[in-house]
């Protein structure tokens, strides 16, 4: 009578977890994913040909196809218009899917199996307890067993030290921060990032093993391509950086209960009205992104995990019941980005090395956590990405037209262009950069809605509005001062604060908030049998920590609750 027990919409950081957990509980699960499936023998040319429709076997995973697509080249992978990592159809001769944003910024979300975890940096910290207890409808201790399960499954491990982390720790210690040997952060301090990255290959420092050999063995090779697509590993399920494409998706397929259909954009949630339950989810309508054909599938429950923009869009476009909070309360950690340029002689005296080597190791390996304010984490990228984030992307305009006031903790604020840019970029290998994540106040006015006129082939398109509060901006400014202080104490000669556009969307959260749109089991109040398992159910921005692990813990819990409620 039904096509499946559960349909999961989206296979990113949350949907893949739901698929695996529900499959392990013995439920029959169908996963619909809008983007391509990389690393699967059913789609050998996923960006140029339609290939098959479904994959339901672990044996379909194919490391050769994976490594062919994952070229590690930053423009090929991360160009938001045409890259293998983009929010758009698998067919790279077509344009991306558009979102309207009438302000400076950009949205880093990816379509495809694994979703945005394909290029995330794998930071997997827990929420700050102080941002959950007494604030969320559930307590931090309620989350702990699910955190532990997700951490063990991925698995999560503290990051190793490479030169840039060594330099980061040197500055952090000089600034008086102390080491935090914990996963539950209640006081300020520094620590290696808890990352979903396999431990470094034990043979890495053994010259008897070639890099080619090491790259085909299990364990991280410190290749520095977290953001541009990790390739260390002997098989898809053993790739070192544990995006869900290589962690939860292989485990989901191993259950034998899960089938995944990429290239399928869900355009409507189908409901019916049950005399006892009332309005409830009964299936989905989707559109094949290659052929344009529309199909329908039915199930006894639906898990929506399309992300903080597409989940509310799907709610609106499905004409589900009105709820003021659908799409509202968007948080984004109101990022900033700072950098420090070092002299070779200083680096020699600190580390015995002539450079920072920003391209080695985990993309981000260490952090300072400051509950109540946010986090700054050492984060270093390949030159194209680094150049625009450090020198080309700013709320503040051009540094030369509006230089910092005397005594400011940075020498440059805003964009640098012209000969000065070229001179700074010559120092790329001696430049250390940090990403700053602000404890972002949740505001109803920050929201996702759909455009009343503009449509694409999947329906009315999303419009994103985000303007941080004065409190968020004060915290961000304090964070920038703390971060620049550690750069200065480490010996940086030139310090740059980019003043990143507020709407640089990396950590979107809380657009379908628990307690407003979904209950504490993450089931929609107004639509029974419709659950949500992405960042959108977070009540807030969890205090600043990177959100993926919290989504994965919640998706684990939601799967358990769903099975108990409707399948026990």
């Amino acid at each position, binding site marked *: 009578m039904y096509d499946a027990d559960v349909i999961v919409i989206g296979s990113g950081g949350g949907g893949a977890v739901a698929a695996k957990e529900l499959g392990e509980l013995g439920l029959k699960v169908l996963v619909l994913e809008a983007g391509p499936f990389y690393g699967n023998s059913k789609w050998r040319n996923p*960006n140029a040909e339609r290939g098959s429709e479904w994959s339901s076997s672990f044996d379909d995973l194919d490391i050769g196809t994976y490594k062919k697509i994952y070229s590690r*080249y930053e*423009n*090929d992978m991360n*160009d938001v*218009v*045409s890259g293998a990592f983009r929010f758009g159809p698998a067919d*790279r001769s*077509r344009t991306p899917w*558009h979102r309207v*944003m*009438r*302000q*400076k910024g*950009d949205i880093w979300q990816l379509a495809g199996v694994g979703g945005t975890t394909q290029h995330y940096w794998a930071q997997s910290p827990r929420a700050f307890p102080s941002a959950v207890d007494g604030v969320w409808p559930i307590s931090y201790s309620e989350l702990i067993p699910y955190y532990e399960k997700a*951490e*063990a499954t991925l698995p*999560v491990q*503290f990051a*190793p*030290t*490479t*030169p840039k982390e060594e330099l980061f720790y040197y500055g952090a210690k000089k600034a008086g921060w102390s*080491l935090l040997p*914990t*996963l539950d952060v209640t006081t300020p301090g520094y620590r*290696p990032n808890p990352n979903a990255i396999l431990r*470094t290959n034990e043979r890495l420092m053994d010259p008897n093993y070639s*890099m080619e050999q*090491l*790259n085909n063995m299990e364990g991280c*090779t*410190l290749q*520095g*391509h977290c953001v*541009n697509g990790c390739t*260390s590993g002997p098989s898809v399920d053993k790739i070192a950086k544990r995006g869900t494409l290589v962690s939860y998706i292989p485990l989901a397929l191993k259950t034998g209960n899960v089938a995944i259909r990429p290239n399928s954009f869900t355009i409507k949630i189908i409901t019916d009205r049950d005399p006892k339950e009332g309005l409830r989810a009964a299936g989905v309508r989707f559109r094949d992104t290659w052929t344009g054909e529309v199909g329908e599938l039915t199930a006894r429950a639906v898990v929506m995990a399309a992300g903080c923009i597409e989940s509310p869009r799907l709610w609106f476009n499905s004409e589900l019941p009105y709820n003021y909070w659908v799409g509202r309360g968007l948080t984004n950690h109101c990022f900033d980005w700072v950098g420090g340029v070092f002299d070779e002689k200083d680096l020699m005296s600190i580390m015995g090395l002539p450079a920072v080597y920003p391209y080695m*190791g985990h993309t981000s390996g260490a952090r300072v956590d400051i509950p109540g304010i946010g986090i700054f984490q050492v984060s270093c990228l*390949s*030159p*194209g*990405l680094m*150049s*625009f*984030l450090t020198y*080309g992307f700013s709320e503040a*305009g*051009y540094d030369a037209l509006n230089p910092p006031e005397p005594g400011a903790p940075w020498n440059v604020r805003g964009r640098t*262009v*012209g000969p000065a*840019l070229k*001179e700074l*970029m*010559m120092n*790329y*290998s001696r430049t250390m950069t940090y990403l700053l994540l602000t404890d972002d106040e949740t505001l109803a006015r920050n929201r996702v809605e759909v455009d009343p006129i503009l*449509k*694409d*082939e999947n329906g009315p398109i999303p419009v994103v509005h985000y303007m941080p509060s004065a409190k968020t901006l004060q915290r961000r400014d304090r964070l920038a001062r703390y971060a620049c202080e550690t750069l200065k104490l480490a010996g940086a000669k030139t310090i740059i604060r980019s003043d990143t*556009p507020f709407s640089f969307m990396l950590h979107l959260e809380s657009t379908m908030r628990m307690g407003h749109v979904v209950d504490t089991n993450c089931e929609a109040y107004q639509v029974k049998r419709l659950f949500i398992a992405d960042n959108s159910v977070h009540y807030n921005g969890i205090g600043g920590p990177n959100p993926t692990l919290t989504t994965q813990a919640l998706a684990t819990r939601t799967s358990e609750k769903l099975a108990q409620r409707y399948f026990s």
Partner: protein
Amino acid sequence: MNPAVSFPANAYSYTIATFRALAEAIVPFTPSMAEYGAEQTAGAVQLHVHEYIIWELDHSLTLAVGFYPEVVPLAYSTAALLNSGASQMVASVNAQFAPSNGTVPHVPFAALSPADRVRTLSRLERLEVDLRALPPPFRNDGGLVKFIVDYLNRAVMFGNYSEWPAYGTTRLETPTRRRLEGFPVGWKQAGYPGVSLGYRALRGYPLTIIREDGGYTIV
């Protein structure tokens, strides 16, 4: 015909002149930097980054206009935005068209000095312009103007300092048909060694999670 060869003939010279002027203002040709190595002199124009910007703008948007989705090219209208901004700036403040650039009479943005092009961008993103006088789709849409002007800055940098220029004669092909034809100049300028299989760069572990018996400890 190879699109990399045919591209200039197909595009409006107006559009190309405008984006060349943009690329030059952000990552200039710098002969004086030859002392740091020959590769340091090349600017974004020498690396054809203006063509990257045009390609990206023309391949970034599809909307359902009427019954079918259609690609909406944005390069020409964005060039018109920059030129409108340049004309408005010259009319309202004390900027002058650089005499040496008089060969592009209908491209006011390109006729400005590089510093005045940056001032034009700054005035546009601060909305210090008459929004009613801008070309569509930017007319009366300050949010879109802010977005696109910021985008143009970072896109020139990403084009210049990523591997895109090294796609050489295939650079304007659809992405799956591009092939590297050399080592990227922007990566040489930055001292980046290129993509890697790994680095023997391990210097220790400050903390380790040990999992056993269903629990964990941190050492």
